[in-house]
């Protein structure tokens, strides 16, 4: 399925958000996720089914002012 992950097109096998993180080797990273602009808490990623064309944001701690 074709997804947009962090602004980049990506072909993915994963059918849910948790599986996508595992597929990207992000499973153990401290990140927050959003699906089509909606925040998806960590414990809801497994039940967040993905569909063709979904936009996913995976955010991590970064320097800031």
């Amino acid at each position: 399925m074709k997804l947009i992950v962090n602004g980049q097109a990506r072909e993915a096998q994963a059918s849910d958000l948790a599986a996508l993180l595992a597929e990207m080797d992000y499973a153990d990273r401290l990140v927050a996720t959003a699906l089509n602009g909606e925040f998806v808490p960590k414990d809801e990623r497994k039940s967040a089914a993905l569909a063709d064309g979904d936009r996913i944001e995976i955010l991590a701690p970064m320097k800031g002012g």
Partner: protein
Amino acid sequence: MTSFYGFEPASRLFLGTSQYPSPKVLEDAVRAAGVDVVTVSLRREGADGAGQAFFDLIKALDVRVLPNTAGCHGVKEAVTTAHMAREVFGTPWIKLEVIGENDTLCPDVIALVEAARILSEDGFEVFPYCTEDLVIADKLLAAGCEVLMPWGAPIGTARGLNNEYGLRSLRGHFPDVPLVVDAGIGLPSHAARAMELGYDAVLLNSAVAGAGDPVGMAKAMALAVEAGALGRQADPLDPRDMAVPSTPVFGKAML
């Protein structure tokens, strides 16, 4: 000491973590200034895992983190970012930025009030990046904010306190609300001036990170903030127009 949602920092300087020449310089600057609160943000994670390394550095500093919603331009974007920050950083604190104009990074204060209300009702402890507008300040407090963070000048401009009258007026209208001058500071004297006006803390980033010697400037800012606060507490002399001799006139020799 002023309490920020129940937290009493030992230092009245809050420091941003962006734009330093290296992680080591950031670490040294934070330690040199002795700050208890640093601002952080969320950005897209890359394959290199840079975000994880950054957070390891911050955790080692043993400071409170104040995540921001920098770059957000609307209520929904800011609220969603705040939720993501709360999960990642494990804190209800959020420096709420909703930008309304790109050249000045002036806050969209209407959207700010709405986002502050939504987040406060959801248990967030909101530090709103606002202007010195008294009416908006009142609405932010009514929305649940217990701290206000008016700008000194637009972010990164190093212009100091653009509207000193407005900032003094805000302090006068809300004597019991913790107030932080956030953004626009360039010099230690700007930071000291904010504290002389009775502000409870100063939040800055570019002035330190962009200085030729960030660690030296961090120390200077910490001292300036402390000096300004001590000066305010010491009840300074009012300015006057006519000279008043400080050396006694009585007893002066007639030569």
